[in-house]
């Protein structure tokens, strides 16, 4: 007996376990999908903002306390001055091309200086020749890798320092250059100049990413380059890039390359740049003055190219507009249809056809709705209406008629409305059917007509159910992307000022920011922020719906 029972019980246990497993898997999936999206998305709103962030907000969006930011920037510039000075000094040592240009320029200036001073003839030639000697000596020094030779050539130049002929002329700059370069040349291994130059380029880039454009540099064209690290996580990332260099090195031929991380501090040991690394690392707080920021304006601000800075205000606005207008169309139609299906008919052929059509409508893929919206509203109906309104009646302006022929909010809303219509009809029908028949009896027995009893008793009793359906379809409309692809959504553009213009939307924006936009890839928190906003919006609506339903079901039970 035991042998017969055992495998059956075992199978039963397995079956139950599989059921448990499936449900747990589903819950797990929900957590896995939602959690990273929400957690990372929240970083777009809650983060440690640096002064760069505050300054960007002030300049680009006009929010913030200008005076305070100015004061902070004063302190921060002071703190950063050390870094820039050291970098400049170091640059003079390695970037000899730049120095040589300066020297050549000074020589040319000297020529015009002499002419302006009225010196000509032989004296002119002599002085120019002497200046030329100095120049060549400097250029030699810049070019050479030999320390001794460099120093000797620089001494050569410095000997002429006392020469009164050069006092107060552009040549005077030569002596300072020579002096600083001799100091640099003493500390830098000149033979490694190319390596330094390359590494210094990386350092400069990292500094740019950290601090934004340095003093005296021209403002970059793209907004994203005009500011340094605006967030503390970005600061840490860029700091790592500043402190450590990463190279792919081939250890053995034929083997995969290995990543090698080296401290730049060691690389630049003994140079003017060496203290910079320690300084930045230890004074990070002073350099950025990070503060915890609740960037609530994320939900209102517009955005710069690629959503690099700013928020998703236009997208939220667009989604709200699309949803609102689609509901304006779908709610009355849906409730009236539901009322008709429940109250006015028995089971005849017309009703069956209508029901089948509603089910068909519910099953049509959303992309086909998009195709239909484009083919019908954008390419057929609206142009005809526009033509009629403009040409025949003269009530539309030519501009409006033109806008009607392009994708716009109205077309997208109507398409979305059509998409959610069956949802609303079904939910409303169910809600109306769920109202106990004795409500209707009571109303009729009190002398209410059919219309009166529907409006005063059945509709209010069905209202929570209908409302739930409406909220669910709201969330559906807010989340759908495919129907608005060709009917009214754009990835970038101004905030529309009428419903005859296309708009940005959270759903299409989420698509675009994830796969369409190269710049957005650099700011993952912005990518996640957008989709978090969409998901939060939709889930909030759903939770409200669930709450209303549970509350009304309790209420109907009289609790």
């Amino acid at each position, binding site marked *: 007996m035991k042998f017969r029972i055992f495998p059956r019980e075992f199978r039963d246990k397995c079956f139950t376990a599989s*059921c448990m497993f499936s449900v747990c898997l589903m819950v797990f999936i929900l957590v896995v999908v939602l959690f990273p*999206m929400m957690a990372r998305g929240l970083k777009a709103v809650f983060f440690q903002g640096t002064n760069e962030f505050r300054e960007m907000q002030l300049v680009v969006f006009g929010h913030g306390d200008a005076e305070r930011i100015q004061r902070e920037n004063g302190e921060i510039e002071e703190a950063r001055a050390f870094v820039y000075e050291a970098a400049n000094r170091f640059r003079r040592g390695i970037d000899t091309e730049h120095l040589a240009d300066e020297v050549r320029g000074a020589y040319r200036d000297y020529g015009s200086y002499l002419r302006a001073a009225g010196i000509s003839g032989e004296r002119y030639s002599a002085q120019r020749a002497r200046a030329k000697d100095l120049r060549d000596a400097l250029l030699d020094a810049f070019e050479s890798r030999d320390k001794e030779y460099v120093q000797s050539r620089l001494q050569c130049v410095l000997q002429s320092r006392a020469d009164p002929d050069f006092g107060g002329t552009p040549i005077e700059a030569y002596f300072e250059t020579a002096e600083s370069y001799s100091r640099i040349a003493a500390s830098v291994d000149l033979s490694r100049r190319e390596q330094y130059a390359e590494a210094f380029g990386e350092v400069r880039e990292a500094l740019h990413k950290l601090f934004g454009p340095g003093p005296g540099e021209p403002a970059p064209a793209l907004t994203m380059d005009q500011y340094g690290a605006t967030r503390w996580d970005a600061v840490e990332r860029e700091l790592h890039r500043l402190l450590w260099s990463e190279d792919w090195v081939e250890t053995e031929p034929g083997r995969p390359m290995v990543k090698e991380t080296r401290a730049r501090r060691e690389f630049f040991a003994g140079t003017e740049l060496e203290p910079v690394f320690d300084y930045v690392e230890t004074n990070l707080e002073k350099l950025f003055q990070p503060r915890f920021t609740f960037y609530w304006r994320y939900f209102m601000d517009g955005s710069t190219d690629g959503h690099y800075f700013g928020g998703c205000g236009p997208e939220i606005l667009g989604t709200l507009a699309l949803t609102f207008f689609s509901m304006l169309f779908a709610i009355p*139609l849906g409730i009236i249809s539901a009322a008709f299906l429940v109250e*006015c008919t028995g089971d005849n052929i017309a009703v069956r056809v*209508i029901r089948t*059509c509603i*089910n068909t409508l519910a099953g049509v893929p959303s992309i086909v709705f998009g195709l239909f919206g484009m083919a019908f509203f954008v390419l057929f109906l609206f142009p005809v209406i526009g033509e009629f309104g403009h040409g025949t009646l003269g009530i539309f302006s030519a501009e409006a008629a033109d806008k009607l022929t392009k994708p716009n909010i109205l077309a997208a809303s109507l398409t979305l409305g059509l998409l959610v219509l069956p949802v609303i009809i079904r939910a409303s029908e169910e809600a109306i059917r769920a109202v106990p028949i004795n409500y209707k009896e009571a109303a009729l027995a009190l002398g209410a007509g059919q219309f009166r009893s529907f409006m005063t008793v059945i509709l209010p009793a069905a209202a929570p159910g209908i409302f739930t359906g409406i909220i669910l379809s709201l969330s559906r409309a807010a989340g759908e992307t495919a129907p608005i692809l060709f009917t009214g959504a754009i990835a970038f553009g101004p905030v529309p000022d009428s419903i005859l213009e296309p708009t940005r939307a959270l759903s299409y924006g*989420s698509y675009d920011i994830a*796969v369409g936009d190269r710049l957005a890839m650099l700011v993952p928190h912005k990518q996640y922020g957008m989709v978090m906003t969409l*998901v939060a919006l939709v889930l909030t609506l759903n939770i409200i719906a669930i709450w209303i339903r549970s509350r009304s079901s309790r209420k109907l039970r009289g609790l």
Partner: protein
Amino acid sequence: MHSSRPQEAAGFNRPLLLSPGQDLRGYVFDRLGRSFLFFITFLSVVAVLLIFFFIIREASGFLAGPYVKQFFSSTHWYPESREHPEYGVLAILGGSAYVTLVAMLVAVPVGLFSAVWLSDVASFRVRQIIKPVIEILAAIPSVAFGFFAVLVLAPWMQTRFGFDTGTNILNAGVILAVMALPTIISVAEDSMSAVGMEIREAAYGLGSTRAEAMIRVVIPAAHSGIIAAVILGVMRAVGETMVVWMASGNATQIPSPWWDLSKSVRTMTATIAGDMGETVQGSVHYQALFSIGILLLVFTFGLNLISEHLLARVRRKKEA
């Protein structure tokens, strides 16, 4: 007036008959109201007809043109080629079939087991918690799932399994499975609940274990609803756009070897979504995309009729 109620209560003071005017007015209003409501409701029918009409109208040039044969026989889809444009839809159909199949392979067992759990295993209290979870899963917008597929799942697959690309059949299929799950679960659970307690009691009374009762009795009895659930899941997976567009890799090919799920494919919906932006209205390519739309429409329409028929059977069972 109301204070004198008892005295007044003797006779009927309001006429029990309608005056001819009232009668006529009532008749007219009733008719008008009914026709108005009918007209509004009939808009759904009009919408369906318009959808069919306009999709077919835009595609008609293609369907009447020289490319139809190629459309149904070729796997090459090079619509933008200048010299030899090709409009073969087979590879695209294959792509849709691949991701749908993978999605169903995952979603059907998980969905059915979950439905069994919800209808027969879980206590009332736990069910009250799990049901909203399913609803929330159903509510997450498809673009969010696509986002997850591209930015989280794809890199993970690439590093974890060493696939050439993270956006492939497996990725799209798994995500589609998750999206189809709520539909499958709720419809299947409804049909299993509709089977009724008596049959279960009979099965248990004969000494069946739960697994035996479910597999031998309840699930066979609920088979039409379960088939409908699977069909609705297939419809959801075939009709889904954003996820497959973002997660399937969009390479018009039939994977070789055929079982390699790490290859990218391109589905019907993704083709429409991806190509429509690049076409000129009225061009052959444009019409070809609408032809794909017809395929989708006809396919889902057919499945819809079947599922409706099956669900009507479930409903009858529930009422009986």
